[in-house]
């Protein structure tokens, strides 16, 4: 009898331990996912912040550039750089035949002509002289140099030929290959060539969309929250508004994309692919988030504040505008920032309103076509070239950096400025 009891008790204790273990492993699993995730993104992405340059001697031969004696600035601007660019690449291997010369040319980005031109524009005295110029390596060689490219594949399965690898290895041995911080990743617009593609256009697109979203969603949401919390009579209609807000907060984002497409583009004829339309669509999405946050922080202002103001003879509008709303601002603002962070990471609705178009210019206003950071991630992730994988990860790092900063900012506002009522 006693033994049975002890067995039963042991069994129950074991079950207790097991249950506890399940809980711990669930937490462990969730945190493991997070770690693997962050590790994977950083380990593939950090190399995109470096860019590989080939150092190639270029002879600025006035004859090949079709330049007269003592050329003016405009002449240099209009000169022909293709021949000297081609020649300097071909000179890397004096014994190269025509095919090999072509391969040599493809070791650098198609931008190489312009890089040589800029060199001369900076220093016109170079004419007739030879100088070592930094040229952007092609994305495949960039990946080879970073060790991301499988060199042991059979030649016909790689985009880099044995010959190119041979020359490249010679350059590396001579110290003519250098890796430097990749500024162009932040200053260039999107490009079909991985080595030239940058996030500037999508970054500006994101900023413009978020600004439009903020300018629409914040005032409307705050005013709506004030009405619902402070003035609205309790009746069926306001209940209906409440149900609507709660529902909208849970409607899938792609439905807002359909709204943008069907109403903003089709009926109001707003320009496609622009941050303006993107921002309006996102603002409709963030509206419920901000309303809910603003209402919660209005609710947190104690009634004694309102009673005191009313007792001093303020009207209800004055009480609200002069006392309740200012006191609720920290909570409202941090809710707004969190809502904007959500909007910043949104992709699907922006795809539907055409913000996936290939844009190789940097937008100057919300009316210019643009992509946004998450859409850029999608565009690059869909392209097959190996060079884009690290770009995607780097773009994700930039985006995550933004989201983390915004959330930290929201936390700081909340903790620093929010009054604790007790």
């Amino acid at each position, binding site marked *: 009898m006693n033994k049975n009891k002890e067995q039963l008790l042991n069994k129950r204790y074991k079950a207790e331990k097991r249950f506890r273990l399940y809980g711990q492993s669930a937490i462990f699993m969730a945190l493991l996912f*997070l770690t693997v995730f962050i590790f994977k993104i950083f380990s593939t992405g950090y190399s995109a912040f470096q860019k590989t340059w080939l150092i190639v001697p270029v002879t600025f031969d006035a004859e090949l550039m079709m330049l007269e004696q003592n050329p003016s600035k405009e002449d240099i601007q209009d000169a022909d750089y293709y021949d000297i660019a081609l020649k300097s690449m071909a000179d890397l291997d004096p014994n190269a035949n025509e095919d090999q010369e072509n391969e040599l040319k493809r070791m650098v980005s198609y931008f190489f002509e312009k890089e040589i031109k800029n060199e001369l524009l900076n220093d016109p005295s170079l004419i007739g002289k030879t100088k070592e110029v930094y040229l952007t390596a092609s994305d495949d060689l960039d990946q080879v140099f970073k060790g991301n490219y499988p060199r042991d594949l059979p030649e016909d399965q790689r985009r880099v030929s044995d010959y190119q690898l041979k020359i490249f290895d010679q350059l590396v041995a001579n110290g003519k290959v250098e890796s430097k911080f990749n500024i162009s990743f932040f200053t260039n617009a999107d490009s079909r060539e991985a080595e030239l593609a940058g996030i500037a256009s999508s970054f500006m697109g994101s900023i413009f969309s978020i600004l439009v979203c903020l300018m629409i969603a914040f005032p409307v*949401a705050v005013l709506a929250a004030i009405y619902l919390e402070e003035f609205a009579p309790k009746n069926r209609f306001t209940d209906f508004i409440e149900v609507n807000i709660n529902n909208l907060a849970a409607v899938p984002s792609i439905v807002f994309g*359909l709204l943008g497409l069907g109403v903003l583009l089709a009926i109001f004829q707003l320009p496609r692919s622009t941050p303006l339309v993107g921002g309006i669509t996102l603002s*409709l999405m963030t509206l419920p988030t901000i309303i809910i946050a603003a209402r919660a922080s209005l609710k947190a202002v104690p009634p004694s504040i309102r009673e005191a103001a009313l007792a001093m003879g303020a009207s209800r509008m004055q009480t609200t505008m002069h006392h309740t709303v200012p006191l609720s601002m920290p909570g409202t603002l941090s809710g707004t920032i969190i809502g904007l962070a959500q909007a910043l990471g949104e992709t699907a609705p922006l795809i539907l309103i055409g913000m996936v178009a290939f844009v190789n210019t940097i937008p100057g206003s919300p009316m210019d076509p643009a992509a946004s950071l998450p859409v850029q991630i999608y565009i690059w992730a869909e392209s097959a070239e190996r060079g884009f994988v690290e770009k995607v990860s780097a773009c994700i790092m930039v985006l995550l950096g933004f989201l983390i900063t915004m959330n930290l900012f929201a936390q700081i506002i909340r903790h620093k400025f929010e009054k604790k009522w007790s």
Partner: protein
Amino acid sequence: MNLILFTFIVLLGFTSYYFGRKKAYSIQSTKKRLTALPQFYGYYLAIWCAIPAFIIFSLWAIFEPTIVKLLILSDYSNQGYLDDELNLIYEKTKALSRGQFTGEITPFIKASAEKYLSLRSIAQSSKAVIVLSIIIASVAYAYKRISSNSRTREPVEKFLNAVLFTASLAAILTTVGIVFSLIFQTIDFFKVIPLFDFVFGTHWYPAKAFVRDSSEALDPTMYSDTFGAVPIFAGTFFIAFIAMCVAIPIGLMSGIYLAEYASYKVRQYAKPLIEILAGIPTVVYGFFAALTVGPFLKELGTSMGLEVSAESALAAGGVMGIMIIPFISSLSDDVITSVPQSLRDGSYAMGATKSETIKRVIFPAALPGIVGSILLGVSRAIGETMIVVMASGLAANLTLNPLESTSTITAQIVVILIGDQAFGDPKTQAAFALGMSLFLVTLCLNIVALRVVKKYREKYE
């Protein structure tokens, strides 16, 4: 022009505020008692100055193009043109008047363009005149009211109240906008494709509808077997099911652990860390699923002798599950913490262990709230787009094998609508019909879930 007028109205509004306030001070200096604080006099005058002007201004901006178009096209009304041709004529006229027209210029179009330009200039100047006279009239009226020291606070506050009320309608307007944008395309779609074929058809090849030219578009028999949504609905629920298989055990157990077992310190760090998972953009999850999880599963499957597609439902569903973990864990954590302590104390007093208390007492008490949180998670899984677009296939296979690729409602909407769309094409309309079904399904889930959670909260408050 519009911008100048706009800034002008704003500036006049500001000036009338100061003007009104000054008037109030001068009334005060005659030892008369004011009926409100001086700034209300200012607000009163400013509102009267700017608001009627703005209303006229925006009405004008909305109706001017239509009226001008009508006037231009009235010249062509009796010549038997079709609507499309008339539109073309109008576009040509506008292009010519801007100097951007490159085609052949007929005398008709040239005359229209001249008429267009003169109409536009008449419209611009008359708009300015009307707006200004409206401002003068309304400011004069308001100024008279101020001078006779009649009430200003009440009208101003009434106006503010109306503004607040209008803002609160934004949520309703958004819902109306969603329904409005979906319903017309959906109705048009079901005019061509019978509802029965859509709901019960088992073949979904919207690409087939694309190659047909517009003259054939009205023949409904062409589209039989093209827009059968069963594979898509099945794929949607299948992927959501896989996601919930990952999210429910992990989310629920971590919610329980955080609420009942974890020390203050563990809770303080683990909870925000898990919630980071909810803040990561979905496109990032999609990239992770496509780049890491998909190939990993494929390799794993090959080593076990299974054939796994690189874009499998398992990869998409699994990663989606990870995304949903924090929703379920933090909601169920909240729900469990709000179960009254007395229930726990009663159970411990009867000699139950902690896990027995959780399983037999707390869990049943918290069940409605937990079900609500799971339903919200399901609604999120169904509406999730980017993970599926990037990690699962785009072809709609009717399969229950998690190792093959399937497609979902959201992914199909993206596939159809990416790039240029022609409205009126059944393929585009199909995307809106899918959007409508998605909206309805998630709406039902949300309403039920929110109601359950609310009921539960009321029970213990």
